[in-house]
């Protein structure tokens, strides 16, 4: 059944190659550096894609999250995000000066603020605008909006710092009208969430034509292709950007940016053998696997000039591997922004064809900075940009998919990285060799901080804590996806991820859509997997219980063998055993108990090795709480290990997954002696006070 479904699934692979352009924007905006603001005029052409009449519009006014301390964003975040704090008296807001239907009545007075998520009457980040006449199914309306956006000092993604500007969530943006059958909707309804500290992306695809006027000394970068630059008589320049098939538009401006460009040359980056390999693995043609050229535009801080090539290389690696695995990046440009020192809040962000990176003046040796952030933010072009998941309601399908994909790209392109330890901006890796860690190990460490705080599948603002949001949106889903890959195999996982990306490119899928793809492509019912790992907070822990391996003594007593009764005395049995030992024909009875300590049921492999090199492999379905194995072999058991390949990455304790008969002291000695030395050092340093 699933195989047939898989065949059907591939039919609409390119059905969404061109997005349905529902919300199209033409914006003319002017940057006012003196008062850190933008004044603009926006024309929104919006199409009612549902089968019902629509009597109102809903918009995000996200800059109002920074208007006062009563907004939901600041209540949730406490005025700090990712280590940056809101600056005193630096408020941001957006005023809709006027709104009217093109050639129609003024709507400004009918604007109402709503708070669909938490009922916070003080939150001003979402508005509803009742229309004088409903929009008929399939009909399009044009809304003319004059707006004024005042930027806050940047601490949470958008704003200003000195003469640096990052314009994200800066214009009135329409919510998504979810029609019946789309995601979880049974009838047409607006999906327009408030701006939360943890989440901000869900919008319809469209085309953006934006004219941004800034003083001529500013270097400007934005979503899409810069079609034109026009010098104005007042010392300003108007930059005209255009982009289709995207659901947001962001820009940046700063006079001192170094603007550098490189071309991602698809034919040079991806050789024929690589194309062949990927085509074979995914079962696609060379032509489908082939990538497109991309113009990479880097807006770099002057003090990071020497890092330009590392930025470009990271972006090229991301374009290459994401493209090969999930389908080519369809846009012509990628703009990478390096925010200045003091504007760290703007770093590590994703907007369509436009990402912000983040680096340091001094870089460590192979510690993955700034590469990992570039790869991750580029990854959002696929998971959120091209597949338009609802980040508010299912952050794991955005951040989680992307963390999983980022890890794979980083492992492929860079291998394990050193732990990024720094003191006063000085990288430790310059002085000493540090341990290395894979993305998987780092994610697993993060997951184990609070593995049971929440179910993985929850709305982003409804996790118990921000930490739980982070773990359940990034690390845990990435580990779940790795576990899924280990369960299904790399090739099947590759096929299903590509199928999912292609099927839902420019669409708005939900969790059941992904699960359906998994089931269809793998040909297996994997609902049990998602039920346990996605829709619950259960944890997995398999452990080796009792283990013994003893000589199998000759039996004593009365035995009936071949119709004859035979009595074996204690002395006889002992002699037989001794003779066997002398002749080296002893046998050993080895007993192993495997325990399922966690709630998660998962099939595992159990591997045992004996002293003579003999091995045993057993598959256990993990259903009951324990299973026992017993062997009589000519030699003793050396070790037993559950899940030797660590397929179940979500196992909360790997140390108890194995039992070795002979004690292993090397690691204990290594670590303990290191600890001893460091404590000696601390004490001796302290003794200088005496």
């Amino acid at each position, binding site marked *: 059944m699933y195989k047939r479904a898989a065949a059907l699934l591939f039919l609409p692979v390119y059905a969404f190659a061109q997005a349905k352009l529902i919300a199209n924007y033409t914006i003319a905006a002017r940057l006012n550096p003196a008062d850190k603001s933008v004044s603009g005029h926006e024309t929104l052409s919006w199409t009612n894609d549902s089968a019902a009449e629509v009597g109102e519009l809903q918009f995000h006014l996200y800059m109002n999250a920074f208007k006062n301390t009563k907004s939901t964003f600041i209540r949730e975040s406490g005025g700090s995000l990712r280590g940056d704090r809101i600056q005193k008296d630096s408020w941001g807001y957006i005023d809709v000066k006027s709104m009217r239907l093109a050639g129609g009545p003024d709507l400004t007075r009918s604007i109402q603020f709503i708070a669909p998520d938490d009922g916070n009457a003080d939150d001003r980040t979402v508005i509803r605008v009742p229309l004088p006449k409903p929009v008929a199914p399939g009909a399009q309306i044009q809304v003319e909006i004059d707006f004024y956006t005042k930027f806050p000092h940047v601490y949470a993604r958008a704003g200003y*710092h*000195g003469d*640096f500007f990052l314009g994200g969530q800066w214009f009135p943006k329409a919510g998504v009208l979810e029609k019946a059958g789309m995601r979880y909707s049974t009838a047409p309804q607006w999906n327009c969430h408030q701006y939360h500290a943890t989440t901000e992306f869900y919008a319809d695809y469209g085309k953006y034509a934006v004219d941004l006027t800034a003083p001529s000394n500013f270097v400007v970068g934005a979503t899409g292709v810069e079609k034109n630059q026009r010098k104005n008589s007042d010392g300003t320049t108007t930059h005209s950007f255009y982009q289709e098939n995207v659901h947001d538009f962001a820009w940046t401006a700063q006079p*001192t940016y170094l603007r550098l460009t490189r071309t991602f040359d698809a034919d040079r980056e991806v050789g024929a053998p690589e194309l062949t390999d990927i085509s074979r693995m995914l079962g696609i043609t060379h032509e489908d696997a082939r990538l497109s050229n991309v113009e990479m535009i880097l807006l770099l801080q002057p*003090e990071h000039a020497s890092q330009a090539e590392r930025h470009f290389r990271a972006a090229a690696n991301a374009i290459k591997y994401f493209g090969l695995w999930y389908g080519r990046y369809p846009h012509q440009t990628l703009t990478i922004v390096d925010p*200045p*020192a*003091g504007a760290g809040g703007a770093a590590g962000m994703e907007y369509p064809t436009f990402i912000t990176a983040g680096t*340091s*003046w001094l870089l460590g040796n192979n510690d993955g900075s700034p590469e990992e952030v570039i790869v991750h933010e580029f990854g959002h072009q696929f998971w959120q940009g091209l597949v338009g998941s609802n980040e508010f309601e299912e952050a794991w399908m955005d951040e989680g998919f992307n963390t999983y994909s980022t890890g794979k790209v980083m492992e492929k392109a860079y291998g*394990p990285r050193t732990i990024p330890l720094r003191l*006063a*901006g*000085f990288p430790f890796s310059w*002085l000493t*060799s540090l341990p*290395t*860690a894979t993305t998987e*190990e*780092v994610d*697993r*460490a993060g997951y*184990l*901080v609070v*593995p049971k705080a929440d179910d993985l599948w929850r709305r982003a603002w409804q996790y118990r804590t921000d930490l739980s949001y982070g773990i359940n949106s990034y690390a845990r889903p990435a580990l779940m996806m790795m576990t899924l890959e280990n369960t299904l195999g790399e090739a099947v996982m590759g096929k299903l991820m590509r199928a999912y990306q292609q099927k839902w490119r420019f669409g708005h899928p939900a969790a059941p859509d992904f699960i359906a793809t998994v089931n269809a492509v793998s040909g297996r019912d994997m609902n049990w997997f998602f039920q346990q790992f996605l829709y619950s907070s259960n944890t997995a822990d398999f452990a080796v219980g009792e283990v013994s391996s003893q000589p199998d003594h000759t039996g004593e007593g009365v035995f009936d063998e071949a119709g004859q009764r035979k009595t074996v005395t204690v002395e006889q049995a002992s002699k037989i055993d001794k003779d066997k030992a002398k002749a080296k024909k002893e046998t050993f009875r080895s007993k192993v108990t495997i325990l399922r300590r966690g709630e998660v049921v998962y099939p595992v492999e159990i591997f045992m090795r004996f002293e003579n090199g003999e091995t045993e492999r057993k598959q256990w379905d993990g259903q009951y709480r324990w299973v026992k194995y017993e062997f009589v072999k000519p030699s003793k058991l050396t*070790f037993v*290990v559950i899940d030797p390949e660590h397929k179940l990455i979500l196992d*909360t*304790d*790997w*140390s*108890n997954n*194995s*039992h*070795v*008969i002979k*004690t*292993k002291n*090397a*690691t*204990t*000695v*290594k*670590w*303990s*002696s290191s*600890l*001893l*030395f460091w*404590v*000696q*050092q*601390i*004490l*001796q340093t*302290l*003794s*200088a*006070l*005496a």
Partner: protein
Amino acid sequence: MNSIDALHAGGRQMLRFRKLIVVLYFANLVMAAAVVAPLAMLISGRLGHSLDSDRLFLNFDPSWIMETIYSDTAWPATAVGITLGVAAIVFLLMNTFFAGGALAVFHREDDAFFSACARYFWRFLRLLLISAVFYGLVWALNIGLTSAIDRGRETSMEARPWVMLGWVRIALLWLLLGVVNMIFDYSKIITVKRQKRSALRATILSLGFMRRHIRRTLAVYWMCAGVGALFLLAYHGLSEVLGQASTVAVVVLIAIRQLYMLTRMWVRLWTWSSESHVYNEQDQPVQTFSSTIVAPAPPSLAVAE
């Protein structure tokens, strides 16, 4: 006696007091072992019979720490923290105790070490408390500078100047900590040499002495610190070359680390000894003259007959 002569004299004296190094070393080792023992038992308990031991031997996996904290095993973080704190205090007191003996035998080599330890302990303890005020002031200055640099960094568009200022701050911190350390080294030396009972008086005398001989005292202290830094570099180089990828390398590194700890003890004692020589030579008691006026004998009034 110039600085180099003082260092030579200190070095020669150290050759006669090798046992002192061993005493300090074992005190350090025992205290550290007390802190580490529960952790070693924990590691052994979790990895002693686990195949993960092989994987973790080659490269540390941060997720192991988290799984250890998360697992049913009682993670002795609080216990270790308390033990480390108690060990630090006990070790500090122990060193305060030994310092009296060490400086006494550096001053008079025939002095009994342990009785000198006891003799000066309370006086040195008072010095320790006074020094805490000085160290506190240095730390407060450091916090102030850190905060000023952070404020500057927040308003700047560049990281470079602020990172560099941060390094200057750290250098200044170390310099000031060294100076305070030196002040109280000489306070102790003065306490021993002049048999001062007042810790405050010894501190004031130390400040006066250092003011009069600033170049010499600084030179001796920082040359000793420089030698200590060379030992550190040598240790670091060796440990980097060795790595810990094999059992043999681990064992060799244990030996090198303990040897390095011995050098740290030696440098500490050598510094004290050299400083004692500087003090002995530079602060010879000033010749005093009796203020009593001896009246001349009255002239004889006897008339010769």
